């Protein structure tokens, strides 16, 4: 079979694996919702005082010493394993695509989406080896599945070479770093959304207060989620800054000016400014916590629009989607 077709098959395989992981993680969450939350208040207190973030927050209701606890987290384990499988399949798919096209495998929208989904899934899997972030699983695999299915059905183009304007090592650096940043922004976004949900539940929101949302009590306290989201966003923000600088250096050579307010440039700038505002909000009295989390939501919406809307609606110099 041709490498390019094999790559496509593997992407479908990864999408299926992510969907399976999504189901497993969802079952896990629903079991958590059913379980009684005994140590809820104690948990929150420990997190607030410990200031050490997620590490010391027990999320599964099991005592930290590993003694058998009230909730069976076997499905989360299944979800995690299948997530690793999906990441491996995607990695192979991306490499094969690169070999088939004879170049770096991220030069159009299809490839960007596939590699972006890979980064998001891989970041989640890697973070999970260092701390318990299984509560993110359902959301990351959900977004990953959507990304992959959209890529396969909407953005697909054949593997082939690229036009002269793209033939430069900057394609590897600029686009590669952009994908990395997008993947990390994705995980951070999920974390901030959880922070908002958990916060609303803790504050007696009538909708989120119901038993169905009981699993929220097993996520870390809002302050710990905030700190995890911040750390991810900080990394992604630095990468995004580099993406913009790298893009400008490349544009200087490829388009004859380093900045020209092309729609893609405009939206990359908007993304940057919104996340800069987020970093300011975090340290502005009265704007930290919940309000700052909304900036992450807004910022991520801009990231998504920058990728989809700008490529498909506006016609600028970044019309490399091949669609």
């Amino acid at each position: 079979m041709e490498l390019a077709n094999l790559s496509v098959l593997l992407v479908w395989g990864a999408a299926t694996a992510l969907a399976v992981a999504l189901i497993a993680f969802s079952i896990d969450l629903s079991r958590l919702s059913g379980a009684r939350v005994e140590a809820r208040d104690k948990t929150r207190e420990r997190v607030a005082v410990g200031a050490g973030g997620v590490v010391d927050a027990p999320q599964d209701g099991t005592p930290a010493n590993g003694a058998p606890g009230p909730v069976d987290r076997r499905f989360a384990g299944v979800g995690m394993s299948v997530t690793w499988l999906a990441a491996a399949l995607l990695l192979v798919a991306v490499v094969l695509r690169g070999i088939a096209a004879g170049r770096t495998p991220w030069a159009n929208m299809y490839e960007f989406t596939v590699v972006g989904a890979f980064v998001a899934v891989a970041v989640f899997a890697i973070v999970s080896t260092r701390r318990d972030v299984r509560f993110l699983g359902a959301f990351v695999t959900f977004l990953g599945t959507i990304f992959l299915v959209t890529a396969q059905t909407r953005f697909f183009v054949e593997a082939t070479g690229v036009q002269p304007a793209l033939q430069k090592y900057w394609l590897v650096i600029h686009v590669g770093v952009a994908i990395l940043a997008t993947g990390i922004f994705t995980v951070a976004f999920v974390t901030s959304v959880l922070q908002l949900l958990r916060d609303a539940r803790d504050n007696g929101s009538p909708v989120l207060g119901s038993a169905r949302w009981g699993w929220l009590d097993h996520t870390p306290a809002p302050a710990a989620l905030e700190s995890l989201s911040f750390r991810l966003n900080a990394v992604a923000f630095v990468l995004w800054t580099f993406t913009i600088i790298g893009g400008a250096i490349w544009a200087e050579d490829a388009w004859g000016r380093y900045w020209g307010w092309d729609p893609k440039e405009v939206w990359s700038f908007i993304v940057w400014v919104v996340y800069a505002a987020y970093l300011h909000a975090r340290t502005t009295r009265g704007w930290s916590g919940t309000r700052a989390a909304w900036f992450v939501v807004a910022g991520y919406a801009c990231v998504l629009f920058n990728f989809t809307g700008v490529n498909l609606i506006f016609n600028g110099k970044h019309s490399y989607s091949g669609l």
Partner: protein
Amino acid sequence: MAGRNGNETYVPEGIADEFTQGAPASGGPARPDGPGRPAAPALGLVGTLRWTWRQLTSMRVALMLLMLLAVAAVPGSVLPQRNQDAARVIEYLAEHPTAGEWLDRFGFFDVYSSVWFSAIYILLFVSLVGCILPRSAAHYRALRGRPPRVPSRFTRFPAKAGAVTDASPREVADAVAARLRGNLTWLPTFRVDRSEEAARGARPAAETVSAERGYLRETGNLVFHLALVGLLVSVATGQLQHYRGQAIVTEGRGFANAVVDYDTFEKGAWFRPQSLVPFSMTLDRFDSEFASDTVAFAQARDFTAHVTVTEPSGEQRPEQIKVNHPLVVDGAKIYLQGNGFAPEITVHDAEGEVAFSGRVTFIPEDTMYTSRGVVKVPDVSPGLDQIGLVGYFLPTAEATEDGSVRSAFPQPVDPLLVLEVYTGDLGLDDGTPQNVYELDTASLEPALDEQGQRVKVLARPGETVELPDGLGTLTLGEDLPRYVALDLRHDPSLTFVLVFALLALAGLTVSLFTPRRRVWARAYTGPDGATVVEVAGLARGDDAGLQAEVDRALDAVPGDVRQPDVRETRAPAAPATPDRTGSEKD
């Protein structure tokens, strides 16, 4: 809200500075976000100005301005912009006469140079400078200050550790201090103070260490913000000094770097003609490559312009210009922006005189290089009409269903010239400047055949064909010269722009990833004669590595070390002795 979600930092008694507040390193008077912010002014003019300035340089206003900037940037991506695509702006204005006129009045077609967009970012930068300068001063003072003295009790610190050893308190404190300083004498990890505490009440005399790290965090932050100012200034300077010219050059011909030799030329307000170095350039050959596989049929693969550059000194050298690889000559960059065919066309009029002879630039309209061009033939022999020819050059001609023709491949496999013929007044004589790529047919008559259809003249390379109505003949040259569209730009600020951008990136990285931590240690002789060591740590904001830092410091303790028993470590902290500042209450 900040209390619940934000970072609830433990505040030891007697230490009240920016380190223990949730808010960032406060620039003292310039950043009054706290409750102490002055209320609305009943303060006269000076008071009002000061109040306004304080508002402007507050974090909250900076936040608003940032969000405003993001929102203000949006319309420029939705509406066509003059500096990118002036033609689409005109189109838009024609389609939306009323709305368009209003949008235009408010600068919506030049968003990024509009008054309102500029106002936002200028205010933001004023705010930034007003915020950064006092913070720089405060940081400078902090850099020369000492770490805060040891708090009287370690019990409630977020990170702490203790041990018991047989080494003396002095040895212990020295070892911990050395570990905290680190191995690099010129760049200590922590700034460390060693001192002693007299016995007080039930607490024995002790050797103490107080240490602080992370000054680089604020340094990075300041470098970052100042670099942004530098970036803005360099971009603006570049705008003022730059020039940019565009020229179309055909194979075998050249141009000189002089204002008159460019088809279009644009310059900043501070441009001086001296900055045009008078080199010249000839296009020797132009090569293009296109994919011929089915997947990416006819996609461009490579464009190369082979040129010879002649320096003002007379020195000549061969060079190449490729897409993505501009040629740099005397500080100016020359870009390959476009290419196409410029076939040689000769027209003899009815008298047999040469009425026109030259290369005609045909502009590609699709990826297959179906290219459009115009020939304006003046009236050379007296009494004859002027002739206008307009039509297409097709590198690989292909007839379509509806009888029209178009190109099927970008390379000249089967070249064909297809022109319609007009006669009348071309308007060449009245002196008004004309677009060479357009034929104004208002005062021209098309040549028609018996059925009333427009006559199309077809010519292949090397052929001479009759023009209709006995107007004369047209000859298409044997070889088909290529042309390149070159874009030459000189912007003296580029290096500064790059340096400031990279400085900003470096400052940002340092500031976001440098932890700010304080570590204190106290060593004293316990009731059983062994030395008791206590270490406590405090971080600015949340910090996952704090406990590890404290443990590392404790690891340095020399001698025969064992875990403290609980009573021992608690003992000295228990008595509620007022500390030296007398601020402690129980």
